[in-house]
């Protein structure tokens, strides 16, 4: 008993002390404590009051508090709930700093303080509130931050502040942004119709998503039904029921929703009515067991309706009559016809441009995909295309290259340096693997392409499993250097990531490198000689064994480099290679065996085709791949030797 009393006393004392402590705090702390619950459990819906109170107080710390709060730098001391700024001393200790005075009040263990973690919704509300401080801030970075906040969460009040800040802006980049934002806000919030129309017209050539985001809401419509067209509203268009824009059922549903026609009786409602009227095993005189068909049920329901036991069904004639007696139209939510007309015009001119740019973007995507396929297939173009060896383990060489990149990054922490090391190393590793495979397996099977296929398939599954045993099944990170992050943005529609550009460049480099090696070097000459006629080549003093080995090594080594590139843009797993193997073979076959240009064309064809089909069926990327393969199968019917067919003796038959 005494124990409970003591605990109670202690609690009371604590409360008293705590209350006292609160009393003695600075005004900003008091204000925060008043709204303590809302600050602790901040939500976008409740935060406005707190921020309003802080702004209304006019306290000098307000801006700092809001900014730090947004950065998750506002902390709370658990013992009394007071708010502080904090900085980490080490992993487990934090130094608390008084909000008002900026002085350190002591170091606390992590367990004794809690960080306030406003979610990103709250953070954006805070950012919107901070705008007023930032637009005229001497620091351009802060001004830019304010503009970003407006872009993300525009408010009517921003318009005035923004207009006022334009005058004194001396940074030309920021000035342009401000002026653009000012026009966007004008469209949304200004009262002057002429100003708005002018602003709308100024965006008629603008590709920005934000411009369209400002224009589209102006054209939002509501679909309505009425006995006659109302006067004085801004009507977008009048619809005819039964047309594709307004099917009969939808039109009738509109009438029902507007209480202009009786609702249809659904099948479920009919069933319910039938069940409700079961009496002595019959419904409306019909025995239950005969009601197992839709027609019988319809008859029974009609009988019920005749007896007044259920609401009568609406007949087709009834629907037609109701539809005929009413008009249907889309009404703009924006009452001013001048605005909607201007917006309509601006948008239609924008949408043409957007269409062109989307096509351009799609072309870039296709180009990028083509270069990835090309890079994956170019090694194969040598081993399969030039030597005629089916190497099913080609994909695993790509994987080995990617893992080489990963291992290098474990030892070389600088990403740029690690990529520079990884590329030649990946070449070396897979070159060695290719040479080993050629010496041990492929050399014995040169005239047996189908057997080579099986043997290399065996190697492929063994290598894949080996990679799993060594590196585990988790995907491994292969991180591109910072200068390859991000994307080349031409406008809001057309953009392409730098890593894809790099892959494209790499593909081009290899194209020319290989063309050079094959056509201009002694090795290339020997390669072509050995492939076309090994005996003749041997009698000319060429060592076919050596040439084959080097050729195969070269093809494999390039696969390794492709692996690093693919790993950078996608994932590094043991299954990386098998994702590309069938596509790679098809690239080579479609392009035409034995010709690097053919492989290039094959990759381009497949890449663009796949993106093209994807564009026609955007919600289903699998369909694109399926139809692409079917296309290839059919294509090969008509050009069995690929796009570029070798002629004469080099063709082999």
């Amino acid at each position, binding site marked *: 008993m005494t124990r409970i009393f003591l605990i109670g006393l202690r609690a009371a004392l604590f409360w008293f002390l705590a209350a006292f402590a609160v009393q003695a705090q600075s005004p900003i702390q008091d204000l925060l404590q008043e709204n303590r619950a809302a600050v602790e459990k901040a939500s976008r819906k409740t935060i406005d009051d707190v921020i309003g109170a802080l702004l209304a107080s006019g306290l000098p710390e307000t801006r700092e508090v809001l900014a730090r709060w947004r950065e998750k730098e506002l902390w709370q001391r658990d013992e009394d709930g007071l708010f502080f700024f904090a900085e980490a001393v080490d992993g487990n200790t934090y130094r608390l700093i008084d909000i008002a005075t900026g002085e350190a009040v002591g170091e606390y263990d992590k367990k004794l303080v809690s960080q306030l*973690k406003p*979610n990103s919704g709250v953070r954006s509300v805070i950012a919107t509130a901070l705008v007023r401080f930032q637009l005229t801030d001497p620091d351009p970075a802060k001004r830019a931050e304010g503009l970003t906040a407006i872009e993300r969460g525009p408010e009517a009040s921003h318009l005035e502040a923004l207009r006022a800040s334009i005058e004194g802006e001396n940074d030309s980049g920021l000035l342009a942004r401000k002026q653009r934002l000012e026009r966007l806000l004008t469209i949304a919030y200004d009262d002057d119709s002429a100003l708005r129309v002018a602003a709308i017209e100024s965006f008629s050539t603008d590709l920005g998503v934000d411009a369209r985001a400002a224009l*589209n*809401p102006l054209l939002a419509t509501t679909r309505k039904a009425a006995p006659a067209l109302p006067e004085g509203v801004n009507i977008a268009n009048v619809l005819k029921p039964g047309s594709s824009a307004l099917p009969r059922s939808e039109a009738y549903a509109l009438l029902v929703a507007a209480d202009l026609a009786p609702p249809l009786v659904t099948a479920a409602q009919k069933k319910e009515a039938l069940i409700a009227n079961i009496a002595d095993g019959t419904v409306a005189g019909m025995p239950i067991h005969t009601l197992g068909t839709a027609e019988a049920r319809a008859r029974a329901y009609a009988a019920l309706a005749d007896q007044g036991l259920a609401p009568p069904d609406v007949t087709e004639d009834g629907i037609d009559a109701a539809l005929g007696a009413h008009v249907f139209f889309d009404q703009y939510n924006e009452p001013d016809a001048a605005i909607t007309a201007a917006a309509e015009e601006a948008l239609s001119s924008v949408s043409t441009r957007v269409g062109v740019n989307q096509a351009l973007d799609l072309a870039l995507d296709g180009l990028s995909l083509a270069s990835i396929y090309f890079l994956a297939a170019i090694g194969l173009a040598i081993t399969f295309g030039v030597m005629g060896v089916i190497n099913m383990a080609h994909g695993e060489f790509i994987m080995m290259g990617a893992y080489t990149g990963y291992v290098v990054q474990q030892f070389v922490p600088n990403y740029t340096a690690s990529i520079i090391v990884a590329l030649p190393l990946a070449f070396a590793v897979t070159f060695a693997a290719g040479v080993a495979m050629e010496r041990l397996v492929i050399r014995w099977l040169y005239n047996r392409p189908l057997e080579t296929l099986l043997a290399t398939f065996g190697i492929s599954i063994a290598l894949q499993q080996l990679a799993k045993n060594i590196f585990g099944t988790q*995907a491994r990170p292969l991180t591109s250097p910072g200068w390859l992050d991000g994307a080349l943005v031409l406008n809001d529609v057309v953009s392409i990531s730098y890593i894809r550009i790099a892959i494209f460049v790499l593909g081009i480099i290899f194209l020319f490198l290989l063309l050079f090696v094959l056509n201009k070097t002694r090795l290339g000459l020997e390669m072509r000689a050995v492939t076309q006629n090994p005996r003749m080549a041997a009698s000319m003093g060429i060592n076919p064994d050596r040439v084959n080995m080097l050729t195969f090594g070269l093809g494999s080594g390039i696969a390794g480099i492709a692996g690093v590139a693919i790993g950078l843009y996608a*994932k590094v797993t043991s299954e990386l290679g098998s994702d590309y193997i069938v596509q790679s073979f098809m690239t080579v076959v479609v392009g035409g065996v034995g010709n690097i240009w053919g492989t290039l064309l094959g990759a381009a064809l497949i890449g663009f085709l796949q993106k093209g089909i994807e564009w026609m069926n955007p919600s289903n*990327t699998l369909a694109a791949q399926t139809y692409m393969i079917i296309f290839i199968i059919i294509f090969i019917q008509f050009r069995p030797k690929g796009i570029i067919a070798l002629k004469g003796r080099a063709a082999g038959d």
Partner: protein
Amino acid sequence: MMKKILSAAVLTAVFAGAAQAEIKVGILHSLSGTMAISETTLKDTMLMLIEQQNAKGGLLGEEIVPVVVDPASDWPLFAEKTRELISNEGVDVIFGCWTSSSRKAILPVLEELNGLLFYPVQYEGEESSKNVFYTGAAPNQQAIPATDYFLEELGVEKFALLGTDYVYPRTTNKILEAYLKDKGIAAEDIFVNYTPFGHSDWSKIVADVVALGADGKKVGVISTINGDANIGFYKELAAAGISADDIPVVAFSVGEEELSGLDTSNLVGHLAAWNYFQSADAPVNEEFVAAWKARMGEDRVTNDPMEAHVIGFDMWVQAVEKAGTADVDAVREAMYGLQVPNLTGGTATMLPNHHLTKPVLIGEIQADGQFDIISQTEEVPGDAWTDYLPESAVLEADWPGLGCGMYNTETETCVQIKSNY
């Protein structure tokens, strides 16, 4: 005796039934194929838990023997391996599966042979099998709260539902679509896209999502992308410079494990909804994380399905002790109402519908690949049949009370005892 000799002689000792002395736990997780990235960790978790339990003296005085098989991300193989585990190996319980497709594949086998499965992954609901305990989240414990968060806290008005093409994303998105329409989101403001497992070329889809913003509504992405396809998706997202402040992405299948495969510095602020994060602040979690790192290496991470296995295994051990046997029917009876501590500082209770009570956590991705927990609720009871689809709203699962996993409360009949697959 004769039988034994025959079996050994005729069919080689290979396939012979094993002795029944010890308690056997089957571990059915893909160690190869596209799901291995996620599932291998769960196999290691189970091995660790079993080792820990054996160090404590085993169970009912017996040693627990794990039987690890590799269904190789291949659904038919899942069914085959389940049959082998139950009838050849005679395992008492199976901990396994990740994708719903694999679970659906083994359901008929489990129900036919009366096996017991602990399924550790968040899933789409619409199911309650007598032979499965669902230790992951049902939609009302993950998808719905996360969508609420998007609606309420972030003010998202237009949704892109991106998913891998199989049961879980399809059904979850169906529920979410119904839910969003309930909340007043128009059908044209919901963009749905499905990609195959292991998809890697995301540029077009990411561009499509960006273009959704053209009508002035705030866009949010709800991702049910599964497995290693996530890596390409997030890399493309980062490359396109999509900030979480502009287009937030909340993922239901991306945890610490998936993030360890990529550099997250460009993804800070994107979200995931789970019932557990490694960063959860609880002593029992610190212990678990420390044991895991000590076993698997300092750079390894823990994640939500691992916690589900921890809870599931603890519960199973308790149920076996309570029942005094590892027999499936006795254990099932003993499971109901059991409570074990979860790793986020609360308690998990086994409900009559074979689901758990779980807290809902929402975390923001940080630069170190961990999640910053920004929202945590009380424990929510898992709902097998969602309230947001009209045909499911009338259904209820209650095994001890009604003996039925699909009970229609309107007609007061048990729709079916066995599950759909």
